[in-house]
């Protein structure tokens, strides 16, 4: 299975991927993953790719072969789907917009949530929305997404317990506590 994660630099796509990868590993599945580092992290499109299954050689996903796209932002949801998602795949997205420069300058068109849903309908993609209106710290939007994935069992083998275990590997103290709280609140 191939998971293509995208967002804007600073949104926490890397952490989301790291948690998923650890949960996948705890489930005993072979994987390879790769994140964007460097230049793009300054407000550009950032991407994490995870491939897992019986035997995985490379983390690089080919166009049209992502079974799941996870997007932290609506433009990036559409961008990743246009190139990577396979028909019949799953999109998990956080409902927020960070407009790219071209849109802000009025040179490119704005997009709306409906554009995403239209694309999904056309390509028979199930769209799963993540949103927490009470969330103050944007850095935890990734945890709200993880709650959707684990809560709905969207990735076989990746259970709520394994996600929590992975979070415990990566965070400590107060940080872990608040992240777990947001995760649990968004499970249902």
């Amino acid at each position, binding site marked *: 299975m191939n998971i293509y994660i995208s967002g*804007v*630099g*600073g949104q926490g796509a890397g952490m989301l991927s*790291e948690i998923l*990868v*650890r949960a996948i*590993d705890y489930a005993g599945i072979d*994987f*390879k*993953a*790769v*994140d*964007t*580092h*460097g*230049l*793009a*992290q*300054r*407000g*550009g*499109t950032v991407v994490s790719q995870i491939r897992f299954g019986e*035997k995985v*050689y*490379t*983390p*690089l996903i*080919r*166009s*049209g072969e992502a079974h799941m796209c996870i997007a932290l932002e609506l*433009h*990036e949801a*559409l*961008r990743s789907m*246009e*190139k990577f998602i396979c028909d019949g795949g799953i999109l998990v997205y956080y409902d*927020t*917009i*960070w*407009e*790219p*420069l*071209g*849109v*802000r*300058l*009025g*040179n*490119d*068109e*704005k*997009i709306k949530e409906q554009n995403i849903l239209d694309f999904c309908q056309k390509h028979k993609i199930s769209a799963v929305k993540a949103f927490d209106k009470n969330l103050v710290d*944007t850095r935890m939007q990734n945890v709200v997404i993880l709650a959707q994935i684990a809560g709905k069992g969207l990735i076989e083998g990746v259970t709520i317990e394994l996600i929590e275990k992975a979070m415990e*590997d*990566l*965070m*400590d103290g107060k940080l872990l506590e608040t992240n777990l709280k947001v995760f649990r609140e968004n499970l249902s």
Partner: protein
Amino acid sequence: MKKLGKLLLSKDPFQEIVMGNTALVRAMIESGTEVITSYPGSPTPEIASAISSIEFEKRPFYFEFSTNEKVATEIAYGAAINGQLSTVFFKSVGLNVASDTFMQLSLMNIIGGMIIILGDDPGLHSSQNEQDNRHYAKMSYTPILEPSSPQEAYDYYLKAADLARTKQIPVLLRLTTHVCHTKQKVSFSSWNGPYDKKRSLFNPENGPYIPVTSKVIPMKTRALKNLRAIEDEGISDSFAESVNNNNSKRGIITMGMPYLSLKDVLTQSNWPPDILKLGMTFPLPRQKILHFLKEHEEIKILEELDSEIELMIKALAFDNALSNVKIIGKENVQDWIGEYTPEKITQLLFSCWPDMVKPILSDNREITLSPRPPQLCPGCGHRSAFHAIKKALKADDIKVGDIGCHTLGHLPPYNMGDIVMCMGASPAIASGLSLNKGTRNIIAFMGDSTFFHAAMPSVINAIFNNHNFTMILMENGTTAMTGHQDNPSSGRNFNETVEKIPIRKVLEGFGVEHIFEVDAYKQQELSELVKEAITIEGFSVVIAKHPCMLKLTRQNKNKKSYVLKHVEIDQNICVLHKECIEDFACPSFSIAESGQIVVNQDLCIGDGSCRQTCPVSAINYPSGESL
């Protein structure tokens, strides 16, 4: 991972999910590497992040970020001829800076052994070119290893350390971006704990260490003999692995990440070729290659970027009169460009063996969306500076950019940067332009890390030869673009607090007469100062200073007392001048469907640098609170 530092020092073997860069650090520890140096540059800085996870007192080696790659290389070399196994790492283009020293390394008897880790960047994820540093291996008579995965990066480092030590030579370890950054579960060995510190072992009799005229011939002979020995003793052969698919017609020779892409592609092929995967690509594993050539009718060579291996293999076949095998190398210009991803490999195989793989259906998935290039962060002092400086310049003035976050100023709407070359190049390029400037003003932008890295000679030259332009120093106290590494103006090095080296004083010491300094947030004043500076005949400097707000905000967010602020638009005042959106262009501003300008609260850090850009003062803090 929270316990990474402890894990890296574990005495017992263990497995852990890490990226290639992190795997290297464990290999450094296990192999007893004593001195490690670097200058930051993608895709390698995460090696230093992994090092920083180990408490300073517990690190079994010395590590520093030096001022540039050449300095870093010289420090590692100095340590290595004193008996310490040493490693230097940097990005692809870093080797250009280090090359004056690097080219001599193989001439020297490096008694401790030395490893040079390169982060090459096929696909240009974070670099100004795609240079293939394997050329340097050949040019400098240095053996080079090319791991394909994090596990192999770790394994190869250990072997490189052995080789460097036993032969007392430099060894290159070339990773590419996706080898540095791929994450997998890597198996590590045990570690017996730090070595006892040896005494200083430098002895001129181990040399000569002085490459002058006639002395160089025996030194060069030694370097060449070492290479020969590596071939003859079967060391390069020991890194080559063959994958036998019982295909006597077709074989593929490949290495590094392209090997993994190939394996991926071949999972869908019902007639896979045999594969010879190289680990050491210079000197070549001749015996294994010759054998492979003899066993097949057609050989495709799959190597990313340049045709290094191809040319050597063709020569080998020619010398051995192997006229029955067809060797297929690069064909189209595109074959020299970009990463060899599974898609690219599929295309390459399809064009020579169309029956072996399915063609890639023409990619009808064109991206229609507005692109999202990297940009200056909310609150960035560089944005404030660009906004102000633009107002001081004429449209035809020439703006020479340099490397760093401020390079992003070349993007619209700022368009502050007509030229960029490499680190530290802007003052000298500006000097050249100023020789015939007519009525145009010449501006050179410069970052603080870059100033210390490579700009000082050209700044001194501007004074020495009396060039006529203005340098604008965008001082943010850190090496921002590569992840906030401390630099000489930061007041800290990698290991401890140190005195800041104030750039202003350095410039004064050089004898720069006209130095202006202002907080980059004070736009009016900055604009006036630039206007003044450009009218000065000769070399002038404007220091536009403001701490990196990404770094500062991250630090502040961890403080208990921190209250996140945001600006908002007073809709009763706003008359849609749109200067905040169209000229200042902080990512926090956008136009809502209602047509009103709104502030994205997820992005705004409440720095307020935007407030002065509004002609009607409509950008305010809620209920009159101020910064």
